[in-house]
């Protein structure tokens, strides 16, 4: 499995990219995630921002990403569509490429999601810091 040092992968985003990536999306820009569990079956959930997608995919609040683990269990996203959404809608080409590389590995879906966690941790931290910085200014 590919393992990344996130700081080696992503250059610091600029404020414009951070603002675009973290914005609230429209109906047409939504991402659909399939939430699977034994009581409810498979439910399609529409998400309208990147943190919301992170919340579902990793099953926790994004600011507690590594603390909570996989509370939500199986949250399935079509990997091809997810990469396209990250690149074209969210606008983060670097993140989309890194995620695509992880998804190309011949491992289970659950391992793929685990593999992209560090990427999101790093990227969301970068975005968060930038947004705080912008707010302070």
């Amino acid at each position, binding site marked *: 499995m590919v393992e990344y040092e996130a700081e080696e992968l992503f250059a610091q985003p600029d404020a414009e990219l951070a603002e675009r990536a973290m914005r609230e999306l429209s109906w047409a820009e939504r991402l659909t995630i399939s939430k699977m569990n*034994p009581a409810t079956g498979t439910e*399609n959930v529409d998400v309208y921002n990147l943190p919301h997608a992170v919340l*579902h995919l990793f099953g926790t609040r994004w600011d507690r990403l590594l603390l909570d683990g996989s509370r939500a*269990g199986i949250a399935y996203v079509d990997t091809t569509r997810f990469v396209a959404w990250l690149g074209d809608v969210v606008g983060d080409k670097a993140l989309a490429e890194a995620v695509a590389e992880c998804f190309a590995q011949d491992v289970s879906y*659950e391992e793929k999601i685990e593999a992209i966690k560090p990427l999101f941790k790093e990227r969301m931290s970068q975005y968060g810091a930038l947004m705080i910085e912008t707010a302070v200014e």
Partner: protein
Amino acid sequence: MATGGYVGKILYVNLTDGRIEEIPTSKYEQWGGGHGMGSAVFFDLVKDKTIDGFDPENVVTFMTSPFSGTLTPSASGRTEVQGIGVQSYPVGWFTRANFGGRFSAELKYAGWDGIAIQGKAEKPVWINIVNGEVSIEDAVGIWGLNTHEAQQKIWSIVGGDEAENGEWRGMSTGRDSGRTTQRPAVVTIGVAGENLNRNAMLLHDSGNSAGQGGFGGVLGSKNLKAVSVVGTGSVPVADPAALMDLRMELQAGFAYNVEEPVLEAPMADFPFYGIITRSPGASTVMWKGKDHPNRPQGCIGCFRACRRRWENGVANGDGCAESTYWMMGTQDENMAATHLLDQLGLNHYDAKNYSYLLALYKMGILGPGMQIDTKLPFENYKSYAFIEAYTKAIANREDIGADLAEGFARAAEKWGRYEEDTTSGILALPNWGFSEHYDPRIEVEWSYGSILGDRDINEHGLNTHVHWAPQVQAMVKQAPLVPAEQLVNLIAEATGLEPEGWDYSPDGIYADAKIAAVAWHRHYSRFWIQSMGMCDTAWPMLVNQVSEDHKGATPEYEPRLFEAVTGTVLSYEDSLELGRKIWNLDKAIWVLQGRHRDQEVHTGYVYSVPTTAPYFLPAKVDGVWDYSTCVGRTLDREKWEGVKTRFFELEGWDPATGWPTRATLEALDLSAVADELDAAGKLGA
């Protein structure tokens, strides 16, 4: 004649004139119990089956089974609720709901096999049952309370609430009438039911709910807040030693071994896997124990104990879909949202469609000053404040909650959006206005059974084996515990059907073998699950994930348990025939309500929007069995019509209308039912 299992009488209460009467159980014993008895009692008491669910003449039954209150594993604690419902769309069909806990057992200990309630009280009341004494009580001081408060108030009135748990309590009927360690078992409605919400549920104890059908609203329309029962008697068991032996056998062979677990989850913190391992407390699917101390909790007599009781006392016993109601925010907020549903008496399975409203908000259709005008804080949809305001609005009929209290289907119709949104699938209500549960385009026992019946069937016993177990294992890339070919052979052996009955390939779901499997599912469920009160998270036990040969307990154990409890020999084949008889009686009632085959069609998206997520089920492709992802699937309208025709022929119903024929009904000893259909001009040709 049974020598055990029944306690002899059914309670009839008429709220209009205050009549309290006894019906001999022996009159209905031929139906087994539970659903069968409830349908038969309803058929006899309600002369005009075309009435609305809110009509005072509607009868609501609470029925137990011979197994209720005994040590029959995973079959002692269920109560079957029936009557004309108000939830299904466009017609409020005669329907059923069910709840666990201890109400059914307490009712039997009080000497009653069931309750039938008819009429409407002049003012809010509750029914108080203490052994053989029954009274209709004024609900002043209880009406308006939430479901938990109402139960606590009734406990304080009936007695025993001041005692510590586990202490003996004497009942007010006198020293020699017996004692119990139990508080009264109360089933109640919340404010949603009082406000005649079509999705109002019934709640018992902390989190046992009868969700579907809108029976909370039906009881609300009768001015009936609650039914309380406490008993100090017992249930006769024909062969107690045999029953105990069977329980121990099932415990040893089919339950989770706490001391030496055979099968454990492949990773920590992955509670879903518990539905395969059957570890206690496993069905609380979304909440991790580490955030709050807790312990497993089960319905009375259960050997699986799938729920959890939490130290913080919030959402105790909520172990099913309701625990997924609100998944944003913290775990404490998730639990609080579910707890709120319980207290308001609102069914999660319709209220959960707030995601549809969010889509309309995002589309610029819903919001302040929009086409669907609302002041609900959709701009803060990720906050707990939103879900709290939204949930209370439905229960109290405020803002757009006034529309949503009629159910999402009726609300969408009022807004002029029903056809468009159920065709695109953004409002996924495939059958009779009920929310999608398991995928109607693939797992067709569920969708065929639902549209040919009256509601979302909500029967997980088969689904766990054919779908959920391979689904979990595929997603973690684990080899399936039971390979597809072995699985279908095991199920075929247990059901007596062909392996091809469990083929979910694009052709398999329309095959004759599948139609036979759907019929088997309806007949088995009608008798063993809904009439005998066997819990669908345990029964049928078609496959055993934790033994070497994976052979399940079905069909050997069900008849043995029946004989041990009732003293009556009932073959598996005869039990299915009884299930078919009950299914036919239900069908006759729906036909009298106006059912025709032309109505038995799913909403548009089922036929036009392909599935996108992997959904593992066994499929036979080019003669080889494997688990298929089933991606890209829709139902074919024309083929569905063909399935209906062949299903009706198999059931002995008129393929042109779907109505039962006289020959079929008379062969099932249902001549009186045939006469009533004939008189209504609705007997199948």
